[in-house]
């Protein structure tokens, strides 16, 4: 499913909204998540999952081909942990 299909599915359930409004709603939600993460905030959505940011410190790496040392600078990595309910739904009937 891509974003336009998500928008279409939601628009179908909400005939009183224009598809363009639904598009704005989906984008507002995703934008809010990204801006929270870029402030270093966590986004916790019960049943769905939680987005957080982890810091990966600077390190000295090696070019595997040449063996040459390269410095890799510090960076931040977004991380998603699946919520309990989604995890259980993914594995239903397999316990």
């Amino acid at each position, binding site marked *: 499913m891509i974003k336009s299909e998500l928008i279409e599915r939601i628009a179908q359930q909400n005939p009183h909204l224009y598809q363009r409004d639904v598009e704005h*709603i989906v984008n507002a*939600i995703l934008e809010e998540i990204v801006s*929270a993460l*870029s402030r270093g*905030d966590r986004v*916790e959505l019960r049943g769905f999952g939680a987005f957080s*940011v*982890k810091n990966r410190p600077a390190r000295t790496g090696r070019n595997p081909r040449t063996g040459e040392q390269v410095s890799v600078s510090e960076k*931040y*990595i977004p991380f998603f942990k699946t919520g309990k309910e989604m995890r259980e739904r993914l594995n239903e009937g397999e316990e």
Partner: protein
Amino acid sequence: MGGKTITRADLAEAVYRRLGLSRTESADMVEMVLQEICDAIVEGDTVKLSSFGSFVVRDKGLRVGRNPKTGHEVPIPPRRVTVFKPSNIMKQRINEGLADAPAPVETEAD
């Protein structure tokens, strides 16, 4: 800045501010969007949201794990897991946002 936790209520607030729907309807829309994404993932569908990232379902086979406390071997049954792959745009925005004002976030263990 940083270290706060954003919830559904904050997402609903963002929809309310930008779209001018009622607060109740904004909250309902947030719920519906999360539900649709969740349903697609549970069906094993990959969910690709451009400029955000994609959710992919992976099948993990049976493997033998260990209880870290007791050292006992325990079988970890085959299971399905969701993996989130952030888009380059998301990674870039996070790194730009935190470059100037580092937030107290967890440092990744090696």
